[in-house]
């Protein structure tokens, strides 16, 4: 389990990283923490000609409040987000979700944007992005564009990022007054990719539920005036819309079961903690 050969660009600025992507003809991979990509490299599942290391790009290593969102630079690590002082108050959903994300040791190195780029359907950060209706900032030598989570996340480990683009930042919207949040998941072991993860946002008469691990990408749905009476029916419909697949650890049916049952749990919890 050793990686194949590749040329390595140790970028010192965003511009250098973008230039490297642009010159590589489509087979370059960005990495910062490498917590997903390096494992795939070692398994020889991924085979880029060029690796572009942005872990030293200090201008991408930041967390900053931009309007009503937290903007997270491409090189910012998960542990930096976890220790961001405003997390519990301003981003309660992330505050609840991040402890489920990998482990102490992988959060030390893994980045938020790396997780979004990898776009594992069971991963917590893409689910929170979808649920909170956050956005990503993509930049290439051709220019910059901002995509909503829904436009960015396309499918199984597949995003709208073009080969020459770098996710320079992700933006997670802050809690608004009156909103309540809840997150839970079932993973077989602590830190594993979730079999199913659910995230709920409740605000006034609007309820939003995001689900990871069932469909090919994290998927969220809104309801207005969702009452306890029709909650089960709505969750069942949503579960069936998401579908799900069998794998060696869990059936599609079980995943739908979790949407129905944990969905109810987090929706009730999110409603209860609206403030």
């Amino acid at each position: 389990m050793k990686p194949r050969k590749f040329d390595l660009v140790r970028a010192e600025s965003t511009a250098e990283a973008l230039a490297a992507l642009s010159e590589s003809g489509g087979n370059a991979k960005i990495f910062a923490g490498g917590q997903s990509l390096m494992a795939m490299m070692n398994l020889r599942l991924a085979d880029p000609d060029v690796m572009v290391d942005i872990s030293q790009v200090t201008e991408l290593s930041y967390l900053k409040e931009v309007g009503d969102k937290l903007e997270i630079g491409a090189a910012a690590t998960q542990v930096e987000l976890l220790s961001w002082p405003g997390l519990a108050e301003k981003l309660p959903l992330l505050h609840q979700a991040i402890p489920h994300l990998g482990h102490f040791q992988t959060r030390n190195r893994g980045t938020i944007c790396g997780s979004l780029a990898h776009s594992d359907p069971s991963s917590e950060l893409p689910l929170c992005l979808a649920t909170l209706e956050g956005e990503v900032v993509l930049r290439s030598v051709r220019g910059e564009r901002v995509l909503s989570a829904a436009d960015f996340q396309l499918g199984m480990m597949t995003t709208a990022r073009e080969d020459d683009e770098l996710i320079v930042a992700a933006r997670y919207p802050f809690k608004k007054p009156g909103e309540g949040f809840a997150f839970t998941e079932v993973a077989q072991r602590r830190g594993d990719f979730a079999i199913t993860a659910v995230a709920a946002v409740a605000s006034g008469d609007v309820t939003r539920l995001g689900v990871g691990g069932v469909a090919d990408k994290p998927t969220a749905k809104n309801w207005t005036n969702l009452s306890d009476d029709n909650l089960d029916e709505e969750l069942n419909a949503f579960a069936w819309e998401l579908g799900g697949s069998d794998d060696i650890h869990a059936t599609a049916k079980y995943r739908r079961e979790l949407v129905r049952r944990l969905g109810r749990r987090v929706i009730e919890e999110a409603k209860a903690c609206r403030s």
Partner: protein
Amino acid sequence: MNEVYKPEKFVGKPIERVEDEALLRGVARYADDYPARLDTRHAAILRSPHAHAEIVSIDVSEALAQPGVVCVITGDDLLEYVDPFLNIVKAPMKLWPLAVERVRYVGEAVVLVVAMDRYIAEDAVDLIQVEYKLLKPAVKPEFAASEEAPVIHTECDSNVLSDREFTYGDPDKAFEECDQKVEIEIDFPRSSITPMENFVVMADYHPAENVYDVLSNFQGPFTVHPVMCRALRVKNTGLRLRTPANTGGGFGIKVAIFPYIVLMAIASRIAGKPVKWVEDRLEHLSSATAAPNRIVKIEAAAMKDGKVTAFRLDQLDDYGAFLRAPMPGPLYRMHGVTTGSYEIPNLYVRNRLVMTNKSPSGMVRGFGGPQMYFGIERVMHRVAIELGLDPLDVIEKNLISANAFPYHAAAGGVFDSGNYQAVVALAKKEGKLKELMERRDKARAEGKLYGIGYTAVTEPTHSNMGYITTILTKEERAKRSPTMGTNSNATVSVDPFGGVSCSTEVPPMGQGHATLMAQIVAEQLGLQPTEISCNMELDTQKDKWSIAAGNYSARFTSGPAVAVQMAAKMMRQKLAEIAAPNLNIPVEEVEFGNNLIFARDNPDNFLKFYRVAGTAHWSPASLPDGMAGGLSESAVWTPRELTAPDEQDRINTSLVYGFNFDFCGVEIDRDTGEVKIDHYVTAHDAGTILNPLIAHGQILGSYSHGVSEALYEEFVYGDDGSFKSGTFADYLVPSATEVPEPMVLHVETPSPLTPLGAKGLADGNCMSTPVCIANAVSDALDNIKDIQLPLFPSRVSELIHGDEPPPPERLSQAAEETPAKTSSGKSSAITGTGQSMVPADPQTVWDTLLDPIKLAVVIPGCHGLDEVAENDYRAEITLGAGPVRGKFLAHVKLSDLNEPKSVTLAGGLDGPLGSSQGEGRVRLEAVEGGTQVSYEYSVEISGKVAAVGSRLIEGGARVVVNQFFSRLIKQIETPGSVTAGEAGTPSLFQRILQWLGIN
């Protein structure tokens, strides 16, 4: 020294381990840490992606041309140097270190590359082309044992290599006379214990002496050493096997390294250089070994009061693709214990061992016990349920009574000692069973799912080498020289300055053997344990070892430890004899302590220990008459109780028999099906405990393996034999958040059969804990009968919830129209159906799909498509989804052509990421606005991508299918807009057809 001296006791004390200092500093030496000669080369192995296939051709030319590659070795290249490994039943199967002619499991070694370093060796592995012709696999044991199954070894008549029946007492009569016949069927899964350190072999052939010199973290049993020597065509002296000072866990797994020892030995000979191979985790999980999965049908004859009078067992044990020494141990080492901890005089057993297209089974901690006790203890639970009794009452009613020892079990086990009732009583009291039952009542009153399980397990330790011959009939046994018993070797030496060293024949796997040895020797010689030097390395060319040597069957405390004590006592006696004349006292009055040798009744009359030791070295001529000079005492311990199977096939499979009784309370989350162990109590009687700290650690480790087996670990194979548990993300080893600490209790009933009174205790919880948890889960779920391990939340949820609510009407209709719907899971085939609209008439679509040039353009990543025969295509393509990408050789055959309406495509992909085989049917139908393309496909994926990406394969397949269609549509709408050979975006229509890997 005026006070009366009391000899210092170390045996039985919780002494800190002497091993830990080096381990904690990071300076302990494991196999991969040993210096290698400067010209050492490094090996990597190409492994089979198929469960069953003929090897048509192997092309290594590109690999050989790679700079840095030393040599490339195939199975055929080995034939000049090796013979096949022998097996106990003398089945004519040919087990070679590399596949010859055929592959029989995913992960089987096919080609070995030797290169300057491992990176280059792996690069070269990717360049080897092997053409396979697929054969039908036999994956499930029941199928493999049937007439319809393909025979995996054509030299054999069937996949069932042994089918033996045993009858003890009169089981038929007991079943006739019983009040209730209770039966249950078990499908015990395949798992391992995956030590954190993988296999390591460093081999160097010395042509001058014709000796293969190997360093490896092999754990024994050394009965396998002659198996390797026979294969290498040398006597035992021709294979110098050295084992390192430390090994990163064994658990039985590290016997399975032996084919690689032979492989690297030959590779070193061919390469003319030392060759080193360090197994990686992917190799380990797919190919190293596993405990056999087992199908068990068990019946109990029970009386109304819960007394069980007979068992009938039908056991079908799955040994994978080869019967590899020391197999089929798991089926027979438990044989003498087949009635468990119970006084059951009547027994019928049928044992079959079957070959399947899975990795070969081997030794795994518990060694047959987990499988056997799962059946026995589940059926005892069922006896209680079906008779309306309390499960614990039924256990207690049947336990062997304390005055029955030595107890002669029906199948021949002679249980040396024990007081099972005392253990159960202790557990109930100290483990607070009453409170636990109240806790269950309370939880249930609150609507929770809560259950309690019990298990009683007799743990055989210190195996009789003769047990394996129980598989032979008495007539077959009569034709060969008998095998019975074991030897254990140890040596204690004292140097001219009083330095004491001790060695034995057990490669250390982490159980603290050096500490136990130091305790025993220090106590005999009046020194401190930290003063005893225990070099745990073993060298078959220089050290004393027996054929029974090795680290297995929890034999240390009743085997090598006894030999250590014997050698230490011999040393003590010799030193006393040297000292006595100088102290002017009789030898019997000599005492040892505080680094002194002195008169027991007058400690002021003493000699320094090192002075006495020095005498034997510096002044041998002064020694008492007849005494040899020097100070090195070796002992061999040979217990006589271990005899060969008798005429009635009774076999005392082990020397000593410990016992443990467990109970636990589990709570199941009704929403998620997650099983939480709320309270776990395990009470043991393993005779005298030599070091409570170490004993406790062994039980905790064994218990954690039991928890793993119950809830997490399984090697999953698809119906096509593809292996699906290739990484630690797929094969779930629990972490600190998943293994709660149990309460551990002890009763000590010394064994009368060993001088130390100790029995092993390291396997008991591997046997008891899985079924204890299963019984508790059954109790929580209304005594549900069928409990399939591991109890994944998904499985438990199924037991709780059964059918799910149907989809709303609108969705069930819409489902017909979704672009791609797939399902796989444990069944290996990914099947899918879907539809897509293409804005062109059917003929145009047809022409694009059927024209190799146009198709090559549409297929992303296609580097050229050749029509090798009519409607038979070959292509080189690069496929992927997300970050995953790989090169494949694709072949597709078209058939059932009905232009322009439908076509069937069949074919496959082969590449370093794996292989796929599939078939698809595409239909074109003119509709308003173009053509409706409908497709259905079924694809089986094997090899790396199946092993490591099973969670993501289906979604990946959908990505590829969708991308193919978007590309097709784009090309038809705007010809030329799609660039041929474009990589990155997956492809093809083959996908449609086949499946692709992805992943």
